[in-house]
């Protein structure tokens, strides 16, 4: 990897100041997306702002009708949180399918959401539950947060501090796992919270995670796999790569949405 300067701030404010000062800096959270791309020389940040020593960015807690997860909470901790399993099991099940045990010991929810990899699981969970991304500056609705492949609404000196997930009465995530990488070839997160119905898809869209509004409309009558029986999504705007064609991904969206609805 190329050389960089290393900073280890103790507070979010210090971290944000460093990001403001060095426009080519990158935040290092769990490092399991950033370090591999730096090793491949696909990324060459001038400065690394390592937030692993910043206090208070980790943990899972219930606040009213939401679950709030600290940005630096590792996948392993989220998956093992009894609190989360009790109140929102669909979300607790998401990190257990990311990477492998060693990756889950390091990878963080904030890192995954900020990176917005088009095949990542957490963006689907955020959009599928209508989560709020809380940064050092503001609160951002997930509908406004994910702006495209590897791109988000975060300003250069903005850092995710925590993510607040409303507790949905019904929710489930179904994922067609790429057998080698474990990434979602397609993943669908569905939820129902009062009148708010969400169907969010990862792994398929050429602009990253997105909602399937036609399914959401059909599910308003009844939140059941039957309501979207026979419905399809267009392959237009979906990814084709060596693993799957856009048509196959479109097909999987319907299949996985129905499976998720059956499981919710």
């Amino acid at each position, binding site marked *: 990897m190329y*050389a960089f300067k290393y900073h280890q701030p103790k507070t979010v404010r210090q971290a944000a100041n460093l990001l403001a000062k060095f426009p080519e800096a990158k935040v290092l959270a769990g490092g399991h997306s950033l*370090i591999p791309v730096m*090793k491949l020389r696909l990324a060459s940040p001038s400065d690394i702002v390592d937030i692993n020593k910043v206090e208070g960015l980790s943990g899972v807690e219930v606040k009213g009708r939401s679950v709030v997860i600290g940005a630096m909470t590792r996948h392993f901790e989220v998956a093992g949180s009894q609190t989360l399993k009790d109140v929102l099991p669909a979300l607790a099940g998401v990190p257990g399918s990311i990477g492998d045990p060693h990756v889950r010991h*390091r990878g963080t929810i904030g890192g995954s959401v900020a990176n917005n990899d088009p095949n990542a699981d957490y963006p689907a969970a955020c959009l599928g539950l209508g989560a709020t991304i809380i940064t050092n500056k503001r609160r951002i609705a997930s509908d406004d947060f994910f702006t495209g492949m590897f791109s988000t609404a975060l300003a250069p000196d903005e850092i995710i501090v925590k993510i607040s997930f409303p507790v949905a009465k019904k929710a489930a995530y179904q994922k067609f796992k790429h057998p080698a990488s474990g990434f979602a070839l397609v993943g669908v997160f569905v939820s129902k919270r009062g009148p708010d119905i969400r169907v969010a898809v990862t792994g398929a869209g050429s602009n990253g995670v997105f909602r399937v509004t036609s399914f959401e409309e059909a599910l308003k009558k009844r939140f059941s796999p039957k309501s979207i029986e026979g419905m399809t999504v267009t392959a237009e705007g979906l990814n084709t790569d060596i693993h799957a064609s856009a048509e196959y991904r479109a097909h999987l969206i319907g299949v996985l949405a129905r499976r998720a609805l059956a499981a919710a």
Partner: protein
Amino acid sequence: MPVVSMTVNGKAVSADVDIRTLLVQYLRESLRLTGTHVGCDTSQCGACVIHLDGKAVKSCTTLAVQCEGSNVLTIEGLAAPDGPLHPMQEAFRENHGLQCGFCTPGMVMAAVDMVNRKGNELDEHTIRQELDGNLCRCTGYHNIVKSIAAGAKAMKGSSQAA
């Protein structure tokens, strides 16, 4: 170049390193602990697995400087240099849980971590699931799975359990 200090296998160590040094390079090149291997170098194969503050991680995907003040356990630290093997190492020997041996240090460290998290009674399905992050190109995993099940049982009550 900064001095990076940590505890490795119970001993305080420090070395002058370039800031971009990976933990696995620090262990192998600065400390000459070459039991930890580099297989794929792309965070997939698990040959570089060590325990960082008690948890299995891929040392090829962690900067040495991030581990300042941390406690690291490598394959060399599992058993005393002149003492008997750690029960998990012994189980790999007994069950012939390797062929070329390149992946073995990572397999053993992952296996001990598995026992730490999941206990001493591990069924085949659990072991295979949990071995997701460790690749072996020789064995077909059969004997590795057998070794881990036996080693997990043998670690029960053993004073050497890591």
